[in-house]
């Protein structure tokens, strides 16, 4: 199937995505559970694992593999964002805590900046800098290596590094700006 996709078959890509998404989601859950319990499994990206699981690696060209990772990274982003959203809404819909004026307001739960805010900032960033935003998606959400990013986006390693630098600075700045975003003029 992946080979069919590699040769440009859109329908094959759709079918592949259908298989990848649930698998990736399942693995993400397991991964986070382990991580939360303090058992770090491995540092490799989940997208590698799902790839190994779903395709016959030996028969696939590197290029198709890179494309697969790009799709999987995008899915990973969606999985995490969805999880952050439902996590947030479940909390809001839960049993209200007792209101007590003496209760510490410290540590009051707030929006999930790490996932939702990065996602949001990244979407805004992609409007001015599509390629640079892609680099972040692959690296931050997909957990890909620089080499894989280079292959997937067909850019030079130097460009990949520079893009990452700039994107990181940009996003950190946006995320630290609590009010107003002058750069979105």
């Amino acid at each position, binding site marked *: 199937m992946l080979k069919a996709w590699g040769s440009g078959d859109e329908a094959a890509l759709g079918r592949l995505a259908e298989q990848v998404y649930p698998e990736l989601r399942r693995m*993400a859950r397991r*991964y*986070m*559970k382990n*991580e*939360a*319990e*303090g058992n770090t499994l491995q540092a490799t990206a*989940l997208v590698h694992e799902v790839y190994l699981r779903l395709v016959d690696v030996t028969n696939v060209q590197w290029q198709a593999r890179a494309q697969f990772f790009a799709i999987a990274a995008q899915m*990973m*982003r969606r999985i*995490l964002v969805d*999880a*952050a959203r439902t*996590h*947030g809404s*479940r*909390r*809001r819909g839960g049993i*209200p*805590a007792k*209101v*007590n*004026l*003496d*209760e*510490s*307001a*410290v*540590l*009051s*739960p*707030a*929006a*999930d*900046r*790490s*996932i939702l805010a*990065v996602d949001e900032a990244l979407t805004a960033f992609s409007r*001015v*800098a599509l390629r*640079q935003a892609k680099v*972040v998606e692959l*690296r*931050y*959400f997909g*957990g890909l290596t620089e080499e894989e990013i280079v292959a997937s986006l067909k850019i030079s390693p130097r460009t990949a590094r520079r893009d990452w*630098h*700039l994107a*990181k*600075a*940009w996003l*950190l*700045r946006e*995320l*630290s700006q*609590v*009010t107003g975003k002058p*750069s*979105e003029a």
Partner: protein
Amino acid sequence: MTPERFRQIEALYHAAREGTAEERAALLAQADPELRREVESLLIETAGDGFLDRPAIRNAPHLLEDSTLTGLAMGACLGRYRIESKLGEGGMGEVFRAIDTRLGRAVAIKTTREQFSARFEREARAISSLNHPNICILHDVGPNYLVMELVEGETIAARLKKGPLPVEEAIRYARQIAAALEAAHETGIVHRDLKPGNVMLTKSGAKVLDFGLARLEGDQTLTAEGMVMGTPAYMAPEQREGRPTDPRTDIYAFGWVLYEMLTGDQVTLQRKRIRARKLETIVSRCLEEDPARRWQSAAELQRELAAVPRLSRGLNVAAVSAHRAPKLTPKNKIVLGEFENKTGDPVFDGILRQGLSVQLEQSPFLTLVSDQQVQQVLRYMNRPPETRLTPEVAQEICERTGGTAVLEGSIASLGSQYVLWLRARNCLTGDILGQEQAKAERKEEVLDALTRIAVQIRARLGESLATIREHSIPLEQATPSLEGLKAYSAARSALFARGFAAAIPHLQRAIAIDPQFAMAQADLGFFY
């Protein structure tokens, strides 16, 4: 931003970042000021924050598993910390006793259900540099937990349940708290949520907990104007109103902590006078509304505390009543001023004032100056019917209608929560008769909170608890729907501004939203 603009930024950023310091300075000097600012703001961020270098999934271990935190059983590990037992539970998360496996020492871990932001982590690291015997040390910051010095003892809040502290002891702790404040203020950190529940009394003295965290929390969500963080009852006016805070904000809260230690009384607007004159001066100056009139630094405060004469320390400081504002007597008239909506969410426009009037109209003890009368007086005052009932306008209406007091309120957001505030002021003397605050965890609970403060303020104004109990139908029983109440509120304003016909569609809408809305039903029946 245009793509060309971005390309300019990008080119200059890379050139500046990759060049030497001199090259960088030269490049930036040549650029137009706008571009230069933009690029400089990016260059600062490169200083490095590891958070984006970890894959997202590593930043979110708890997201897919909701049971993570409650599931932190004995022996579970958070990073290098092994959980030993649960010490307590707060509104925001849980507190555990844990062992730092690397250093082999016991620590306290506070968890939250949500991830911290990168900024929170960064600023918390600054706070962890605070090292003072009277400050609980912040050792480490995880993705959604804080590792703190394990402090054993009880909080002042817990201690106060047994009554006031002996004067000597209260002064000793107060001096230690002031020393903690001084140390923190020197490094630019303001506590912003000092209160009896945040000070631990241990064998070695007082330890102030959660330094500076109130603001960090605020930063995560602080977007709309008027948002406040902290515990409403102990908040200085500037903090309550969302204005800038500084060390004097802590001095205000300190005043209440000292007051409570000495008297055993809870924060209240009609506070008692402390008999020992020196202590009364110290407390009252902490509690000045205007920061410029308070003690200006924790150091100054410490000197004052050290100078409290021994003689007065031995005296019974049991406070005596003073300045007790006259309460209302039955049949006193009240003008409902504006209920200011500081949340930016239009759903609250108008409805809280309406809700409050529904609540207060139930009281046999109070008489509200009706909206109709208000409209009449506005006409006398040559003001348009939709004039905002600002404190000045409300006071004038109160005087003209022979009323006794003006009630004014506000709602502000506090992270995902809401704070409601209500104050009754005598419109002849300007004395504050009572002031109440309540928190709502979420939007759906705002009406419930409004009911609570309405009841509290009725008690404050002298109404007996028995009559309140008898005549207090919670607002949610009138209608649980904010939208329904909003339509009803629109009907009321339309009625007074433009007559019956204008009110009818709004009432119909209110009933369509909530068919059980009896007041709307009754009004509609009346108009037809």
